């Protein structure tokens, strides 16, 4: 029971903490809400990349780089001629602007300008070219030729975000970061090192540098980054509590993560390059896992650490990026069964390797990403492969670490009966600490959970509840959900299935990992010890999350929003207009 009075400096500081606790959730909720509304409600503004002119004179716009022509209702260019196959042909543009026509195993065959299209490689086509589908002839027009806009098309949205300006949201987030930093400094008042204020200042600087970079590239979208920086701020608060001595390193990891985000984003701009290099990158990931398996060191029960030249890291975190590359594919490849089989084999190898390392959590995360990728790639056509793959993985998982899994599942749901045993020690402390924080928390740096093993990684959600309160902890979950839901929503106006699969796979990894972390540490799922994206302290995990985020950024096709997507196409029928492109400095 403290006898702290208002008169002393401590007294005044304690009043600041008291008030900041209540104020902090406001900018947090506002930031998440503004970003979520902007990402999930904003207009995407359909770009049109070309037309197919039908015999009757009608024009069918090509809204994507990859378009299926056929009799099926869900074909992009759907025509109900009985002689057409359900999925007859594909008209596909690459990132260099070159178009090709593919025969998707049609009955009637496909001819371009009179030449028969062989199954497989396809046939190139120029604007004005003639596509003969047996009974139907179509004239192809690419967006490189200017055409008058279609009548009735809406004017291009000048500002897809509506009144929500990304810069203002970022400014709100900076308010949050400043208050959080002040609170963390107050908590450490007795032994404040320069590292705490420096880390928060660096966080703010890195964010605004990132914003400036985006603007310098003539792009306005910053919601995805803002949400990620929000999560990083929450994570930094936990790190300042648990390991103030490691804050400088953590700041370095953040900077490197942001660098990787821009690097991967830039890399993904060029689809041709990304498609060409996806297997080499996938192979690199497999090699990393193999080296890890051979030379890795065991830490806390899992052999998932690698030490090279004094730097230790978790290869499995980076392999996630390689895994997404290997899983993504353009539409023409989706119709080649060999491609999917290859990926199943690759995914099987990854999950097996992780299980052999006893990294049960990561194996599950990879497996869930595999399921999503396999479903998007195959739909129901290859359900067989899907189920065979699923069964095989489950078997491998169960066999590889039987006692380990049994122990995890055995204690699941019984944490409070094992408060001092392995099956409940961490979880009960996590729940007790989280409840101690209530809705508003005890203040950054004022908790006790950080003393418990893995508090700032596996238990970081509870630590957030304890110090910042349930409101901010839930806002963090919503932030991750909003980023992921955007990836799904962006699929509607995606250019290539490569981007859709990449973004959805990255989103799946972020989502499933979050679910395992949040629910596992609270005894609602088995406790597998995976990190919470962007929030858990640690280098490999943070950097890899930023890498994965680039895939979602690359799927952002709102006009002028994402640096990771090249501009192009007619915006809502207005040739060569880039939407917000002319209003760069309105923000």
């Amino acid at each position, binding site marked *: *029971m403290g006898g*702290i009075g208002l008169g002393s400096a401590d007294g005044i500081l304690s009043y600041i903490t008291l008030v900041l606790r209540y104020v902090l959730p406001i900018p947090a909720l506002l930031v998440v809400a503004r970003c979520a509304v902007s990402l999930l409600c904003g207009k995407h503004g359909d770009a049109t990349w070309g037309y197919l002119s039908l015999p009757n004179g009608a024009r069918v716009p090509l809204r994507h780089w990859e378009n299926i022509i056929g009799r099926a209702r869900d074909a992009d260019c759907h025509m109900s001629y009985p002689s057409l196959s359900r999925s007859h042909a594909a008209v596909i543009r690459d990132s260099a602007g070159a178009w090709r026509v593919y025969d998707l195993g049609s009955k009637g065959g496909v001819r371009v300008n009179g030449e028969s299209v062989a199954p497989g490689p396809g046939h190139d086509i120029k604007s004005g070219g003639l596509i003969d589908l047996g009974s139907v002839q179509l004239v192809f027009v690419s967006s490189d030729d200017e055409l008058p806009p279609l009548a009735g098309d809406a004017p291009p949205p000048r500002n897809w975000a509506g009144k929500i300006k990304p810069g203002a949201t970022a400014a709100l987030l900076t308010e949050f970061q400043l208050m959080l930093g002040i609170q963390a400094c107050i908590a450490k008042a007795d032994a404040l090192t320069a590292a705490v204020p420096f880390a928060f200042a660096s966080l703010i600087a890195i964010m605004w540098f990132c914003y400036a970079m985006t603007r310098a590239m003539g792009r306005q979208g910053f919601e995805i980054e803002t949400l990620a920086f929000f999560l990083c701020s929450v994570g930094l608060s936990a790190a300042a509590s648990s390991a103030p001595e490691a804050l400088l390193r953590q700041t370095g990891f953040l900077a490197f993560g942001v660098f990787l985000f821009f690097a991967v984003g830039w890399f993904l701009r060029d689809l041709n390059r990304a498609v060409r290099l996806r297997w080499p990158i996938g192979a690199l990931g497999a090699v990393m896992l193999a080296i890890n398996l051979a030379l890795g060191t065991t830490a806390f029960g899992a052999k998932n650490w690698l030490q090279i030249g004094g730097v230790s890291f978790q290869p499995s975190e980076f392999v996630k990026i390689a895994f997404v590359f290997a899983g993504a594919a353009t539409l023409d490849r989706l119709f080649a069964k060999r491609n999917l089989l290859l990926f199943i084999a690759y995914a099987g190898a990854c999950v097996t390797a992780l299980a052999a390392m006893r990294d049960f959590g990561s194996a599950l995360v990879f497996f869930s990403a595999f399921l999503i990728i396999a479903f998007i790639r195959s739909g129901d056509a290859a359900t067989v492969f899907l189920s065979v793959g699923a069964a095989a993985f489950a078997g491998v998982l169960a066999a590889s670490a039987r006692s380990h899994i049994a122990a995890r599942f055995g204690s699941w749901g019984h944490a409070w009966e094992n408060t001092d045993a392995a099956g409940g020690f961490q979880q009960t402390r996590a729940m007790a600490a989280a409840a101690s*924080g209530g809705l508003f*928390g005890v203040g950054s740096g004022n908790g006790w959970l950080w003393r418990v093993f893995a508090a700032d990684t596996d238990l970081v959600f509870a630590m957030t509840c304890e110090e910042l309160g349930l409101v901010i902890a839930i806002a963090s979950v919503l932030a991750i959900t909003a980023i992921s839901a955007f990836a799904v929503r962006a699929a509607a106006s995606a250019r290539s299935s490569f981007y859709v699969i990449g973004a959805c796979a990255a989103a*799946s990894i972020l989502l499933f990992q979050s679910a395992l972390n949040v*629910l596992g540490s609270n005894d609602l799922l088995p406790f597998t010890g995976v990190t919470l994206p962007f929030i858990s302290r640690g280098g490999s995990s943070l950097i890899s999350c930023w890498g994965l985020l680039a895939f979602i950024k690359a799927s952002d096709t709102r006009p002028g929003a994402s640096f990771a997507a090249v501009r192009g196409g007619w915006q809502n029928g207005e040739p060569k207009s880039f939407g917000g492109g002319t209003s760069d400095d309105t923000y």
Partner: protein
Amino acid sequence: MIRIKRRALSALLLAALLVGGTCAYAARFALSGGRWASSYVNQAVYSGGKIAVGEITDRNGVVLASPAKNGIAFADDEKLRLACLHVTGDAAGNIGTGALAAFKSRLIGYDIANGVYARGGYGDTVALTVDARLQKAAYDALAGRRGCIIVSNYETGDIACAVSVPTFDPVSPPERAELDARYEGVYINRAISSAYVPGSVFKLVTSAAAIENIGDIYSRVFECGGSVDIGGDTVTCTQPHGSLTFEDALAVSCNVTFARLSLELGADTLARYADKFGFTGTVSIDGIKTAKGGFRKGEEGSPELAWSGVGQYDDTVCPAAMLRLVSAVAAGGSAPQFRLVSRSALSRLFPPAAERLLEADTARQLALMMNYNVSRTYGASNFPGLELYAKSGTAEVGGGRQPHAWFTGYITNDGCPLAFTAVVENGGSGASVAGAAVNAVLQEALRVY
């Protein structure tokens, strides 16, 4: 691409898992947060597994338990420690209904908005409704005999005193108490966690049923020849009572008359009243559940049914439940919800929640009869200065042991709206043994309450 777009929705399944799981977590947080925070694993408010914050006081601020460097400090007064053991609880947490165990989340100052956070320092003071002086008086009155005394304010529902014997000094708890006959059931607060054979105090239930179900009850004259033969068994009185009115029958506690009334009312009616008065259920005192009593229906016309209406057979009653019935009689039929934790100044502005157990008229009639009991049988001079309404019970327990002595009722003295129930196990006569113990407590109450 339309196809791909649709398949992409599958990723939302994982989003549903995350969001749904988080909602489930939030729900558990709202429902169980107090319990989580009160767990000994919570280092914010526990130290070395012992609660390290908060303070327990009586209604006047006398400290009963407070955190200390190495555990919990109890009151300085040894008698107070012995008297308050069961309401305060022990350091080891063996007494589950003690405040240290039952009001943990209040002690740590938990609320869902702020968790355990408090600016100046964690923890809260839990002011109990009991009065330290009444506790000591009741402890003295029991004079080491097993049993309990529980007193409540029938206007507010505040429990003013609850003492249970055997007890021990929480500063030096007995080792292996469960193996020591002297400490049999010592971790139980007998006033709220046990149920005894009620004996004649149960006649209040039979009387209430008779008042509401037998139209000419007041004009009847009953004959008692000292015993009555029912279905091959004999129900006896201590002596032949002769011709009796209903009021007289209760005042002299005539078994013969009440056996006949029970048969007339029937098992279903008696059982209904036992349920309605809460004898067979439990009530919550600030979250502490009282013990359930029991009432087994005897067959119509059987001696079991007759005995069940005079509080024998398989009847059992929790002292707190009996206290609740007499509180209701005192308060015109509605029993205010019992409380062990003082209400805040703000919530005292609102009347306490109350549940109607009796019709107002029934309550008035019972009151008159309970007052008549005192003047006719118990002797007002034995209770000087008390405006007393009471019923005694001498409950046969068999096995050659002395009967349990019960005394229950209330007083209407100015500023002292107190109801009481006392049980002295194997104490003998209800009116003289338990009545004397109650008198000692109420005399102290007139001075201090």
